């Protein structure tokens, strides 16, 4: 009987679901995360505006890590595989995710794309999200960390205008700092200040993919995250953490859950 609006209709049954709307995505993200942790793969969700320099950053990262880590990338865009081709040219094992009209990646898109990438041989996986400073922040993909690329040309107050993504960021890479001399109205410290107002735990690095400035710091940050994951995973192994039912399947081969 309906007791919520007072109509008393006996055919109406109010149902209290108490479920997060994106719980299905969260299940998918947990599934991806288990795979990543199980293989000791550091997965980073790279977000930022279109043109912030996400792809250039990954190219610079590949140059810096050449011979030291095997890296792969999933490149999300509405159309074209241009980024995946650029990344492949930079010796990154890359697969594109073309979303059609979707403004973000979700866990199932990442999961599907992983079936086309030899990800189990990788040390680092960068998931280059669709260029967008809003929507990608809402969807967990199973990553170990969120990194936002914010270029100096976007203005000092972008973090204040688009706080949602910066709330979720573990690290912000302030990119294109080599352009600062040409931008008299932009001061790096003002960008850092904006970030400190919206990030719960503010961490940022100033980088230039063109000159290589700051890339060493970024690589050091990656190594630290990798070390943290490895030690946490070692503990999980000792504790005999239970995995999904397809744990024993070869990497990348397992039954799908819808």
């Amino acid at each position, binding site marked *: 009987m309906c007791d919520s609006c007072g109509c008393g209709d006996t055919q109406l049954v109010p149902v209290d679901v108490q479920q997060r709307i994106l719980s299905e995505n969260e299940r998918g993200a947990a599934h991806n995360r288990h795979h990543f942790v199980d293989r000791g793969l550091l997965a980073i969700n790279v977000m930022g505006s279109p043109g912030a320099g996400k792809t250039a950053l990954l190219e610079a990262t590949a140059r810096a890590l050449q011979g030291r880590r095997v890296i792969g990338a999933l490149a999300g865009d509405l159309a074209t595989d241009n980024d995946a081709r650029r990344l492949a040219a930079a010796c990154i094992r890359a697969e594109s995710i073309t979303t059609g009209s*979707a403004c973000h990646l979700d866990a199932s898109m990442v999961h599907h794309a992983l079936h086309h990438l030899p990800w189990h041989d990788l040390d680092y996986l960068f998931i280059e999200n669709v260029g967008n400073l809003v*929507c990608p922040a809402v969807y967990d993909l199973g990553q170990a960390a969120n990194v936002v690329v914010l270029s100096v040309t976007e203005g000092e107050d972008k973090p204040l205008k688009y706080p949602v993504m910066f709330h979720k960021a573990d690290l912000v890479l302030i990119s294109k700092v080599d352009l600062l001399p040409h931008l008299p109205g932009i001061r790096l410290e003002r960008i850092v200040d904006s970030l400190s107002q919206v990030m719960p735990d503010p961490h940022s690095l100033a980088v230039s993919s063109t000159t290589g400035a700051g890339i060493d710091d970024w690589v050091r940050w990656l190594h630290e995250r990798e070390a943290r994951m490895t030690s946490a995973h070692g503990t999980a192994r000792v504790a005999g953490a239970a995995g999904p039912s397809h744990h024993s399947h070869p990497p990348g081969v397992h039954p799908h859950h819808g």
Partner: protein
Amino acid sequence: MHEYSIVQALYDSIVAQAATRGAATVHAVRVRIGELSGVDPGLLETAWRTFKVHTICEDARMTLELVPARWVCRRCGRPAPVRGIRRCAEC
């Protein structure tokens, strides 16, 4: 504009609930939205009106309950009234 995929996920969960309970029609849907969820209430309602046509939810009205974020300064413990800005005016 990710509200359409939010509505898709909401719709899928409603259909699953309806199937479990043998419901023929959905009359009303009530959703709680957190201030920091990154979901725009107006866009969500628009997406819902578009999406529900010719579905079990065709006649269902959506009611949104907005849940405000509460801020407390880590340093001084005072509640911070500033929306979206994580810096204490006192400190």
